[in-house]
């Protein structure tokens, strides 16, 4: 019995301390219990004690239930308010767009700068924010950095200044080239931002991965030459090949680009001209390159097609980068054809005086307007100017004409009986373009009666016959149809006998080109002859040549 009571008392102690708020009360009860051991009141008081105890415990149970309910509701509220903003995009980061990125080159370092924004429109503060930024290009990582932000309060849009850098020495030559000039397919730089963050007490953890693509078009996006608008003309300080161009540069960097240009012959590497232009970065402009052509190269550009190279050396004012570029262009000469048909040249006496006629043909490409052509004809050593002609020729069409060089008698005789080198000095002015240039042509003139010799002209009084022998070489490129008129004159210049010989009656007087001709003529005379006059006429060209020879009496 006593043991049972003691055990009960110990149990009471244990039960008493289940509630700290009634500990003292229970202790007193325990003391009372000890006092009341063996007394029936003990049981009654114990009964009271448990009643009271239970009365305190029940509310606590209820309280615990309430706490549990409230806790559950709180978890639901926290879950919804934590997850919903993320699901609806109220928590996000903004990466700088292509227009917001600033590029700089300082020394050997390329900087990428911009502003990132961490937007927290959720209900709680974002903590322990870590943003890993990586920029990919050329199939590798160009820039990377780690940014730590302690916290972003609720309803706050926090700006983070982004500065990434990379060494230009890490770029290959090809990559630098593409950085400056871009690529035909454009270079895509991929900016990847990985953000990790959490709510207080790590209730919710966030991992956001943003990726954006920035197009890099190159510092010099475009440099196009308008080859179809190329001009060859006179400008204020000379004759120039003018080539319009369009250049578009990006404003990634500041300053300007200096382009040194050279115009070269692809085959011979000869440099015709050079020029320089300064292009501010960030502009789109159309302008014209003027390559001044030296006087002695103008003829080459007028008459000859050629393959040209436009070599560019590009440098930048604000940073140390230099590049070379080459563009090829086929130059089509404005004068496609200029032919002087020397083989068809001839001296004619059909008109007043003698004239050397020189047919020609000219065809120009894409030129309009007129050209003035002045040609002077010189002897071989240019000591004698025989004649000149000036003509105005329409351009842009296939034109055939004939140059005419009036000759005096002496010159006419010279041209008929003496083959020689002729020099044609040609001055051409393209009137609309204002371009003037000079060219020279040399031609071997074959005289139709080259080395004409009239020999053994004599008169036999017994037979009363005059006889003479003549020979020449037809050095001209065409056949001669000779009509020869021989007049025998007396001392008083009276005609005492005549003879006409024609190719119509005797085909031997048709003399082929380069043929040597020899003939002996006998004429009966009644009177005393003094001299003979031989007149050669070429029916093909109208050439007429007269010579007097004395007749010796045998």
């Amino acid at each position, binding site marked *: 019995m006593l043991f049972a009571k003691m055990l009960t008392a110990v149990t009471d102690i244990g039960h008493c301390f289940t509630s700290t708020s009634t500990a003292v009360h229970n202790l007193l009860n325990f003391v009372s219990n000890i006092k009341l051991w063996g007394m029936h009141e003990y049981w009654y008081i*114990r009964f009271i004690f448990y009643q009271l105890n239970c009365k305190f415990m029940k509310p606590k149970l209820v309280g615990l239930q309430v706490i*549990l309910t409230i806790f559950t509701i709180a978890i639901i509220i926290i879950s919804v308010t934590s997850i919903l903003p993320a*699901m609806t995009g109220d928590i996000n980061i903004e990466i700088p767009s292509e227009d917001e990125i600033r590029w700089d080159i300082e020394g050997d370092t390329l900087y990428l700068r911009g502003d990132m924004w961490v937007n927290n429109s959720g209900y709680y503060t974002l903590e322990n924010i870590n943003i890993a930024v990586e920029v990919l290009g050329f199939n590798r990582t160009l820039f990377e950095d780690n940014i730590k932000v302690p916290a972003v309060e609720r309803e706050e849009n926090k700006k983070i200044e982004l500065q990434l850098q990379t060494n230009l020495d890490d770029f290959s030559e090809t990559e630098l080239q593409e950085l400056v000039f871009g690529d035909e397919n454009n270079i895509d730089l991929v900016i990847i931002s990985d953000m990790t963050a959490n709510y207080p007490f790590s209730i919710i953890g966030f991992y956001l991965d943003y990726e954006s693509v920035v197009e890099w078009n190159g510092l010099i996006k475009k440099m196009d030459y308008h080859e179809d608008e190329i001009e060859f003309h006179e400008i204020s300080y000379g004759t120039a090949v003018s080539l319009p161009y369009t250049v578009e540069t990006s404003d990634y960097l500041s300053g300007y680009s200096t382009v040194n240009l050279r115009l070269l012959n692809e085959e011979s590497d000869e440099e015709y001209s050079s020029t320089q232009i300064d292009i501010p970065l960030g502009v789109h402009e159309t302008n014209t390159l003027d390559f001044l052509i030296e006087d002695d190269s103008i003829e080459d550009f007028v008459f000859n097609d050629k393959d040209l190279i436009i070599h560019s050396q590009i440098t930048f004012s604000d940073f140390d980068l230099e590049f070379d570029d080459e563009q090829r262009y086929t130059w089509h000469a404005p004068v496609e054809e200029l032919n002087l048909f020397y083989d068809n040249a001839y001296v004619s006496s059909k008109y007043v005086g003698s004239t050397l006629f020189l047919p020609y043909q000219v065809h120009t490409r894409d030129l309009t307007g007129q050209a003035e052509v002045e040609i002077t004809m010189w002897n071989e050593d240019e000591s004698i100017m025989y004649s000149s002609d000036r003509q105005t020729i329409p351009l842009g069409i296939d034109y055939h004409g004939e140059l005419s060089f009036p000759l005096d008698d002496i010159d006419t005789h010279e041209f008929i009986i003496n083959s020689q080198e002729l020099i044609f000095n040609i001055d051409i002015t393209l009137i609309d373009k204002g371009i003037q240039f000079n060219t020279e042509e040399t031609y071997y003139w074959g005289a139709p009666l080259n080395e004409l010799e009239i020999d053994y002209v004599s008169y036999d009084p017994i037979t009363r016959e005059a006889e003479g022998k003549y020979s020449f070489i037809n050095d001209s490129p065409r056949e001669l149809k000779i009509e020869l008129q021989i007049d025998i004159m007396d001392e008083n210049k009276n005609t005492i006998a005549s003879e006409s010989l024609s190719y119509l009656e005797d085909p031997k007087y048709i003399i082929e080109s380069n043929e040597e001709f020899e003939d002996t003529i006998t004429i009966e005379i009644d009177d005393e002859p003094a001299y003979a006059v031989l007149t050669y006429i070429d029916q093909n060209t109208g050439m007429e040549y007269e010579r007097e020879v004395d007749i010796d009496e045998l």
Partner: protein
Amino acid sequence: MNYDKNKIHPLKAVLFTIFSLILFVGLIWFVVNMISTEIPEIEHVFQNTAIYAVILGIPLAITIGITNYFGKGDKNRLVFGLISSVIFILYFVVVLGSINLGFEGEDFTYTLTITGIIVLTVIACSIRGAFFALEFYTYQKDTKTKGVQKEEQKEVEYY
């Protein structure tokens, strides 16, 4: 004071079982399937959630039902109350853990980890388990008090 240690509540057990099945199995299944049908883009969020809710929700509902079958102060109520609390913990850990809170947009992806929420639910379930222990001790004293009262009555009668 209510004393119901030896009382059983079959109707209450059935009601709690049905309610638990509806709440922890049926509702989850319905919501997940509705979302997957209406918004296919986020179907991946609840990939196996419904299955886990069924696998763990059924025993959970049964243990809740059994717990409420017994009266307060009953040892069986304590035991099944603790078991249901453990299953509750398992339920929330597995079902919440199966939710793939991630979203992929045109140029972004994000993923949420809800470890903190899971920890809070575990704490809540643990409190629930402690509640049953406290309830058992409370109503067991009540039982003993009733026993004391009977003995006291006997003593009074004896004396």
